[in-house]
């Protein structure tokens, strides 16, 4: 079992003929994801890698192939438009990998996708992977292994670091989700925690947060109230100076709120086992699974 994507996911790639889109479409196909269609306006009628039909619009692609999920690799200026198009065509799960989407665009995208019942993951995220079944996005498949630990994170490479520790120590994952580091994102920690709690294939959850904002504190409150499965947590940015952006638009601390210390305390108070180092994930998850 898993959350959001599995063997039955029929994936559409928006921007499939672009530099990033084509590279990752190939990787996803090699991993075993059912890539059923691509969309690039003006390239309708072409075939990608001799297998995947390319369409001019998402609506055409959905009608012809029954695609039920979409992943977006278009440049930032067109990303919001691509999300609108996917939601309008009835796609219920949209993953936006694109980095650099203007936040003002996202303020309007969010009510639009909500009204249509579409779940958006991202933007500026690495996507997600259900090991052995389906990979949507850019998380390297070779560092993951099928198993029963759910992973949710705001980062990209930090997720790889921690998942790699799990896999190398024989701890597989149900689904690994990168929610992205932007200020406005479609799917947050709580959405993933709820899904993992409800997933019979997940026995424990690893959650990786960062400085800035209050998402982790809210997630901790949710864990305390609603999550019965053991949760292990990590917060990056303990050494970050105040009032500075650390790469992710989201990772900014202002004043005393949003600090790593505050978030780690919130985790601990909610009964979440807090890692001090990435490598600690192995011991803490091991303990949680034996409990």
């Amino acid at each position: 079992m898993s959350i959001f994507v599995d063997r039955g996911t029929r994936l559409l790639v928006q921007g499939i003929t672009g530099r990033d889109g084509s590279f990752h479409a190939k990787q996803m196909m090699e991993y075993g994801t059912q890539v059923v269609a691509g969309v690039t306006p003006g390239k309708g009628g072409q075939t990608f890698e001799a297998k995947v039909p390319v369409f001019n619009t998402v609506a055409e692609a959905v009608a012809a192939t029954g695609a039920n999920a979409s992943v977006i690799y278009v440049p930032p200026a067109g990303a919001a438009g691509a999300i609108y198009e996917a939601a309008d065509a009835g796609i219920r799960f949209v993953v936006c990998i694109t980095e650099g989407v203007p936040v003002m665009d996202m303020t309007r995208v969010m009510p639009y996708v909500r009204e249509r019942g579409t779940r958006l993951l991202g933007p500026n995220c690495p996507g997600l992977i259900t090991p052995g079944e389906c990979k949507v996005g850019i998380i390297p498949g070779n560092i993951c292994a099928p198993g029963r630990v759910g992973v949710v994170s705001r980062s990209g490479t930090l997720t790889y670091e921690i998942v790699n520790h799990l896999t190398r120590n024989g701890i597989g994952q149900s689904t690994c989700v990168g929610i992205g580091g932007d200020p406005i994102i479609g799917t947050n920690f709580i959405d993933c925690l709820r899904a993992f709690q409800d997933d019979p294939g997940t026995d424990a959850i690893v959650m990786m947060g960062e400085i800035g904002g209050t998402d982790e504190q809210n997630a901790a409150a949710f864990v305390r109230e609603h999550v019965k499965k053991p949760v292990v947590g990590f917060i990056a940015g303990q050494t970050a100076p105040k009032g500075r952006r650390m790469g992710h638009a989201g990772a900014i601390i202002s004043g005393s709120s949003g600090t790593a210390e505050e978030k780690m305390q919130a985790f601990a108070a909610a009964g979440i086992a807090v890692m001090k180092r990435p490598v600690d994930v192995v011991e803490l998850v091991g303990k949680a699974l034996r409990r």
Partner: protein
Amino acid sequence: MNLHEYQARELLKAAGVPMFDGGVAATPAEAEAIAKRLGGGVVVKAQVHTGGRGKAGGVKLAATPAEAREHAGRILGMTIKGLVVQKVLVVPAAEIASESYVGLIMDRETQRPVFMVSAAGGVDIEEVAATTPEKITRLPVDPVYGLLPHQALALAFTLYSDIRQVRTAAKIMEQLHAVFTRNGASLAEINPLVTTPDGQVLALDAKISIDDNELDRRPDLAALRDESAEEPSEVLARNAGLTFIKLDGNVGCVVNGAGLAMATMDLVKYYGGEPANFLDIGGSSNPEKVVNALRIITSDPSVKAILFNIFGGITRTDDVANGIVAATAQFKVPVPIVIRLTGTNEREAFRILEGVGMTALSDMDEAVRKVVAIVKEAA
């Protein structure tokens, strides 16, 4: 990207927000000329991207144009929190009856711009927010419909009771909201919004930050960037496609990805070291980026050793290895380098490094412990 006060004023003025006339000066003579034109007493204000200008001596009252010239002479070139003052804003010294705060910020939680309005404005607004948050009225604005007239009026009524002042303030809220959305701001504030003894409502000081993601499609806003007001190494890094923030330690860090970069700094600290910087080389890193990263880090004399921590996903570790080799061929790296590489094309990367007599580790913990030990030994 933070705008200077004078730039923020120009955007607000163009939208119709009432404010005193003023001018920007880069020399004492210019400041004097502006003061002469304005007539009466003026305030000379340092234009730097930091708060607490007044407390640092960067804001001075001048009774005459000659005095404005003197103050400008002292403030221009002054260093405030590490930033050198290049320009001053000269505005009339107003008599003030009341000071309010009107701000709009992009709020992660409601996923909307949120108005924050308080009758307790002025320099201590952060104190107000911390100790008496009930004095601040918050209003999330619907991103589709915008600020509706009755909402603007309701906000204005929290500041004033005179209906003429209320109407003016409501209009200002609408204008501020228009500036915020039109320019893709992450913050736009008027602090203080003042009333004068004769009842006028005016914006006295303004602050605007633009979402960096807007700049590609808004060259007019990108042109407002003042690189002379930033840390030179950070400007160099941005122009090289890197995200770099200078810190006070001595372990230089080169990492791919912001989260892993922060976790790497934290681990340096955990093992008793002090990171010298945050540096994210980003996703698809070509060797040139690595060369630039090393150039920037080695220009900091406090760096005693450099740590590479690369988890190859999109980033190819052989690209990074080639970058390290290219950099060390182009210029002398005067301090030891500890390299941790794992992921995409790692075998090729290890082979490239071994070809020039360098070695790499594949474990993050081991690499961090090693670099901290080197720095401690050197001390």
